[in-house]
């Protein structure tokens, strides 16, 4: 991908939360419909559909694999249909798949759709499903390893090495919640305080229930094309300006440094390609799913020195109206965790912000931002710079 070669022209999203009456295909259809309407294109001009894999929903994945989306959406000009997954890193993987189609001329307009329905499962099934997503079946799961513990172990080590306090980690949840209150589609609708976060029921030390993400039904979609074509189709295309990626591990025991993981090198790569730096960013859309990861990645993006990110959140610099608005949809912790779709929701929110369509959460005059994603037990890190102009 070269700077500005590809762009996203539209988005679609549904409310995130507990919606047992809404099926997987209904979510996918709704977000697809919205993304097409938002772009103002003829549905039959969409010549490729990428379904992002649902983390739990084998029947839906099978349906998508075998062409349900282009048929249900009536995409008469569709030439390519596929299912793509890299877990939580999927919002990057789907872009790469779309770039492949667009860059080789196999497609001109690519519709990407994510849908997730967790309300089909019991809490126990979800705990088991997520353990498998993040933990090794031979070496970890037999010991009772679970996803919240993965996050907790990172947090304990991060606090030990940097002196970051539980209050500072709780401040991340509070900052997220302030943004979620400005989002019509977010799952959480009530104010939150640091005291509430820390006094809540302990789940996996040091994380209380408010510090663990909320599994939710939801979905989002976007349409991607070349930068050149995007300019002809919409007033404000959002360009992909720079990116960086690293793979680190499957088992968290193989991550060399739990308190850094591998986020700084790809962030620097992304800035370098875009020809921009942290000081040029109007927004940080950080996907970490747990407070310590969010602070760590925020630091890797260059917004605070190591160990000072937590204080930054606590001082309110990440809030609406703050120095660097962060996670403007409320992220997994407040908007809701839709499996592989957390990064996709942040990407969709990124596009809305840069198109001036973010409603009450709109950061005035936003031009550039950084967003990230990663899958499994933070197995990889993908950083991207987006902008509504090519600098």
């Amino acid at each position, binding site marked *: 991908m070269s700077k500005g070669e590809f762009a996203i022209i539209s988005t679609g999203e549904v409310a995130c939360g507990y919606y047992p009456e809404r099926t997987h295909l209904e979510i996918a259809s709704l977000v697809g419909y919205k993304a097409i309407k938002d772009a103002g294109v003829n549905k039959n001009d969409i010549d490729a559909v990428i379904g992002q894999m649902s983390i739990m929903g084998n029947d839906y994945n099978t349906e998508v694999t075998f062409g349900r989306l282009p048929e249900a959406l009536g995409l008469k000009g569709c030439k390519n249909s596929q299912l793509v997954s890299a877990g939580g890193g999927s919002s990057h993987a789907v872009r790469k798949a779309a770039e492949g189609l667009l860059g080789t001329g196999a497609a001109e307009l690519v519709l990407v759709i994510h849908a997730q329905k967790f309300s089909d499962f019991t*809490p*126990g099934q979800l*705990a*088991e499903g997520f*353990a498998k997503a993040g933990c*090794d*079946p*031979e*070496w*970890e*799961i*037999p*010991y*009772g*390893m*679970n996803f*919240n*513990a993965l*996050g*907790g*172990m*990172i*947090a*304990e*080590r991060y606090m*030990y090495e940097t002196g970051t306090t539980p209050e500072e980690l709780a401040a991340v949840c509070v900052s997220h919640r302030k943004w979620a209150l400005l989002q019509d589609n977010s799952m959480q609708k009530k104010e939150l305080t640091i005291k509430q976060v820390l006094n809540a*029921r*302990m*789940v*996996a*030390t*040091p*994380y209380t*229930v408010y510090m*663990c993400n909320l599994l939710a039904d939801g979905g989002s979609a976007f349409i991607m094309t070349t930068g050149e074509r995007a300019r002809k189709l919409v007033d404000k295309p959002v360009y992909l300006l720079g990116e960086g990626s690293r793979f680190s591990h499957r*088992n*968290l*025991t*193989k991550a060399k440094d*739990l308190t850094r993981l591998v986020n700084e090198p790809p962030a620097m790569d992304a800035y370098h390609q875009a020809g921009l730096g942290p000081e040029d960013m109007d927004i940080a859309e950080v996907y970490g799913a747990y407070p310590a990861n969010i602070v760590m990645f925020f630091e890797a993006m260059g917004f605070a020195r190591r160990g000072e990110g937590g204080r930054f959140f606590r001082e309110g610099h990440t809030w609406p109206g703050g120095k660097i608005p962060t996670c403007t949809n409320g992220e997994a912790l407040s908007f809701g965790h839709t499996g592989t779709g957390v990064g996709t929701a942040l990407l969709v929110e990124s596009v809305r912000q840069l198109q001036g369509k973010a409603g009450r959460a709109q950061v005035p005059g936003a031009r550039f931002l950084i967003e990230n994603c990663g899958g499994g037990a933070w197995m990889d890190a993908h950083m991207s710079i987006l902008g509504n102009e090519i600098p």
Partner: protein
Amino acid sequence: MTIEYGKPLPQAQKWSKTFWEGTKEKKLLLKKCKTCGNIDFPPYLYCTECMSTEYEWIESSQKGTVYSFSTTYVGAPPAFAGEQPYTLVFVDLVEGVRVLSRMVNCDPLDVRIGMEVEAVFETATDDVTLVMFRPVNSNR
């Protein structure tokens, strides 16, 4: 036995069977490359550093330090719900590899990063013995 156990058991790969045979004899075996000396944990088909297929199983000292930990109070997978709270630990073995395990013989509130620990072998079924860790000098 397996049915009574009721929790997920490790399904050994061809290259890890020796490890699980070792735990039944209270040995913590590590797969060491004969060409470059790298220890792979978890073990894989070949040495993940140099691709050599020449290896030997060495006996670990069974000692290490806690790199990090987390105590699960709620939300464990159903098979482990009855054991809550329990403390998961990352242990850096003296041999230089990190393993994930469970802390035993220690109050969850007493677990600390840097704590010295040693392996304890806990029989799960006739076929499987798991490796847990306890504080060094704990009498058990």
